């Protein structure tokens, strides 16, 4: 009795096992694939701040950025600020899909810079679930502009650094956000009482309105805004629109900053929107696939 019961059970379970395979196409569903999140942001920069993105391996990127004159500076006489634009040019290369290195030169304080960016973690779902992307970014900035304080300066006085972690998440196909804790270090500060190193936190996001167009925004808070020399720095923010056409990304924006190097727009921004310190600007990036 017991035996036949066991056999019946065995056969039944065998039949059941076939039953599960009954529809061949069910096999499609038990695949555990890793789905890497791509294109969290259109560009390697959101507006001023860096995004988690890097160009792919073997891709050379050229970025040209302009920040026009402010709304409170004889606006019509300066042709809507176009007459006194600040520019920055950047050339960077994707060494691997994760590692990106580049150089830049800005007319604002004649700053030359070099940066290195590394994608440490990439957001993914499926077999492995990683909720956010994490990219590290560091830059070294050298001020070429002459000092007007009449004091002789060391070369090291001209150097400043930015180190940041960019934590980004693509919530859905339209909305992506980033949070970037950063530290900025200036070798030279007004007096010994002032901190050389300040902490900053950038919050930013983009919302796609079409497949090729998105609205962007960012703001950065900081740990120290008052310096003993009397300078009081403001909170940098920007609003913009991204337009993508093939190999180009156009980013048009309005911000309260003119500098385009991390330490300067983040930690040394003197302009205030409340008294007209608003600037139109754009970034244009073009990529070239150098190595296929």
């Amino acid at each position, binding site marked *: 009795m017991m035996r036949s019961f066991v056999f019946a059970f065995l056969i039944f379970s065998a039949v059941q096992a076939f039953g599960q395979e009954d529809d061949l196409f069910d096999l499609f569903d038990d695949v555990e694939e890793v789905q890497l999140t791509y294109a969290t942001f259109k560009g390697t920069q959101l507006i001023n701040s860096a995004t988690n993105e890097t160009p*792919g391996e073997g891709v050379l990127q050229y970025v040209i950025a302009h920040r026009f004159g402010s709304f409170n500076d004889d606006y019509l006489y300066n042709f809507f600020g176009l007459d006194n634009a600040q520019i920055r040019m950047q050339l960077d290369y994707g060494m691997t899909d994760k590692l990106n290195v580049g150089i830049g030169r800005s007319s604002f304080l004649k700053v030359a810079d070099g940066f290195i960016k590394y994608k440490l973690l990439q957001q993914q779902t499926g077999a492995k679930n990683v909720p956010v992307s994490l990219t590290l970014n560091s830059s070294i900035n050298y001020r070429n502009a002459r000092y007007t304080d009449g004091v002789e300066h060391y070369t090291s006085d001209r150097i400043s650094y930015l180190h940041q972690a960019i934590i980004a998440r693509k919530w859905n196909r339209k909305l992506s956000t980033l949070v970037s804790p950063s530290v900025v270090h200036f070798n030279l500060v007004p007096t010994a009482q002032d901190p050389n190193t300040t902490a900053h936190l950038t919050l930013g996001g983009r919302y796609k309105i079409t497949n090729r167009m998105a609205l962007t925004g960012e703001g950065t808070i900081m740990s120290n805004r008052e310096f003993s020399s009397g300078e009081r720095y403001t909170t940098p923010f920007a609003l913009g629109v991204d337009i993508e056409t093939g190999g180009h990304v156009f980013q048009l924006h309005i911000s309260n900053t003119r500098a385009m190097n991390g330490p300067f727009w983040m930690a040394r921004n003197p302009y205030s929107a409340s008294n007209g310190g608003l600037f139109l600007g754009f970034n244009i990036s073009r990529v070239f696939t150098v190595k296929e």
Partner: protein
Amino acid sequence: MKKLFTLLALTLGLSLSAQQYMTRQGSLTFDAGSPLEDIVATSNSATAVYDAQDGKLGVQVLMTSFEFKRALMQEHFNENYAESEVYPKAVFKGKFEAGRAIGALTIHGVTKDVDVPAKLDLSKETAHLVAEFAVTIEEYGIAIPSAVANKIDKHAKILVDCKLVAK
């Protein structure tokens, strides 16, 4: 008697399952290139299933598994054309019958009946599926902007090459 029955059940089970073939490393190439632009991508992680008993054939591929030579092109493919986040997979479900694959092909959430030539080399252990056909991109609801219309072949060639093994 009981033993015989068990044996029968077992062999029946074995013979049944031996009819099914499968792979998760199928190769699928997509070519929508034109003389102006080289647009070719390959996925080497397509899933293909075949049942020799009833001729059922299925192929499925994850859109994000297509690898392009250019990273930006791959991004545009997923972001602007295939919309891979909304429609992550392309699926063919149908039958293999007398040198043809007949069934329903779903790309970009649009399902169309297809009947295309295919070749299936069957042995006890393996089944080698090869097929080459064209799909009209716009039929699957994928819009090609006029600015790039002359760079993209409206009839993309699909090359399927899957080596299935008996389950």
